[in-house]
């Protein structure tokens, strides 16, 4: 059985003349959490943004190689289709400020003009908010705007918004870097819970966080994939010297 959801093959990325990712080969397995870690500027954000083709908005960004989602090269698909299948949660919570909580969750359907019956819509909203562990906190305020929510709640709202599209993969770009420890803890629990349903790829510069919640870890350094493997193994017996130095805080 093929359980490789995403395959990155001989992947290179450039900003102008700057070669930011060098020949990356990486697979992501179904229902796992993979942490991509590395020091600032190592290309981890570029990599994650290439996976749902968000990097295309950057000026002068080019790339070569392949990224396959269930065997299909995402660069040959419509970027809009790719983004519906691969959801994304950003560093800072970014709910739509003009929309109510309900409309934020259903925004992927509404903004794309996908028409679904109201009862189904209600189900999607409730299910997504339950999955993101926000339902109990907001069920009485669904039609209020989300501005009164705390940062952690807003981030869970953004996760619910991504889940509502029923994505196969969820990309998390340092999802807790703007949150306090308590909210971070809640999001981490949520990620462990969610891997039953979606494959997750998380960028983090927090080594401890990668150790706590990921099944696999990829260590990027200066645009190169230094090491990739089971988190437990890599954190106890790293193969590469640079990984060991990064994990023990010699640089970063």
């Amino acid at each position: 059985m093929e359980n490789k959801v995403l395959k990155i093959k001989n992947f290179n990325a450039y900003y102008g003349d700057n070669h930011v990712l060098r020949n990356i080969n990486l697979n992501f397995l179904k229902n796992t959490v993979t942490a991509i870690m590395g020091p600032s500027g190592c290309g981890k954000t570029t990599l994650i943004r290439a996976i749902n083709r968000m990097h295309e908005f950057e000026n002068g960004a080019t790339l070569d190689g392949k990224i396959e989602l269930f065997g299909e090269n995402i660069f040959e698909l419509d970027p809009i289709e790719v983004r519906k299948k691969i959801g994304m949660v950003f560093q800072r919570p970014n709910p739509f400020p003009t929309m109510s909580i309900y409309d934020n969750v259903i925004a992927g359907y509404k903004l794309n003009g996908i028409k679904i019956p109201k009862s189904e819509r209600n189900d999607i909203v409730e299910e997504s908010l339950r999955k993101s562990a926000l339902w109990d906190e907001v069920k009485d305020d669904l039609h209020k705007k989300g501005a009164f929510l705390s940062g952690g709640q807003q981030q869970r709202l953004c996760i619910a918004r991504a889940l509502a599209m029923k994505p196969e993969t969820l990309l998390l770009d340092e999802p807790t870097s703007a949150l306090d420890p308590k909210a971070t803890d809640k999001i981490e629990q949520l990620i462990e819970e969610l891997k039953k349903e979606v494959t997750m790829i998380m960028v983090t510069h927090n080594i401890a966080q990668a150790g706590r919640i990921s099944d696999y870890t990829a260590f990027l350094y200066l645009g190169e994939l230094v090491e990739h493997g089971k988190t437990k193994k890599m954190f106890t017996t790293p193969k590469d010297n640079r990984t060991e130095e990064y994990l023990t805080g010699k640089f970063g």
Partner: protein
Amino acid sequence: MKINNLKKRKIKDNVFTAVVIITTLISTLPLTLILYYLIKMGVSSISWEFFVNLPSPPGVTGGGISNAIVGTLILIGFSMLFSIPLGVALGVYLSESKKSKFTGLVRISVEILQATPSIVVGIIVYLWVVITMGSFSAFSGAVALAIMMFPLIAKSTEETLKMVPNSIKEASFALGVPYYKTVLKVILPTGMSGVINGILLAVARVAGETAPLLFTAFGNPFMNMDISKPINSLPLLIFNYAGSPYKEWHQLAWGASLILVIMVLLFNITAKGIARKWKIKY
């Protein structure tokens, strides 16, 4: 010696505060005096008849400015109809487009148009519209006002939309929403209060314009609601009547000035209110 120094500092501080407060008071003085004088001179002519009657001929007391009020509203209405779509679309383009020679050229021409003297706009519209159509008309007046309004709307739209954080745009893209829908359904609604604010300020700005209407809307002593015919407006009426030798007409001009200023103030206050009430926190 040190204490002495401290005292000096305090005195300097107080003097500075006093200077700032006094200059602030002086700068509010013109508006206060204008309002005071307008109310003093104009309030006596304002009555129910003033709003519903046509101007009276010279020598007859009373009379109203109903044709100018209706004319101003028609002119503003049509100029909004022409300038809002143009201005908002242009503002979206300027805020969204990447830096290029063409964008730079567009931006400069918008800025130059904004700074073009209104009398010149009036003459150009006279050549383009009035001569082509064969007569002065409300339509040509509205075109002249619209040419003055749309650069203002474009600039304010651009500034507002530039303030919409990129993260919100990215949120929309990440859901697979195509670019044009992101602009229409996410970016514009998020910046809506600023866009409307800009439109109202542009209206307030042109509502009192006289020069572009001199050769276009022309003015009309009678009631007119046909946009292909000359039409009166408050600034035109003030211009014509204040310059006339008749005392009754002077009185009408004072009353009309008061109404015009109140109208412009209302636009400004509404714009402020909307900006405050619909303000969006990111």
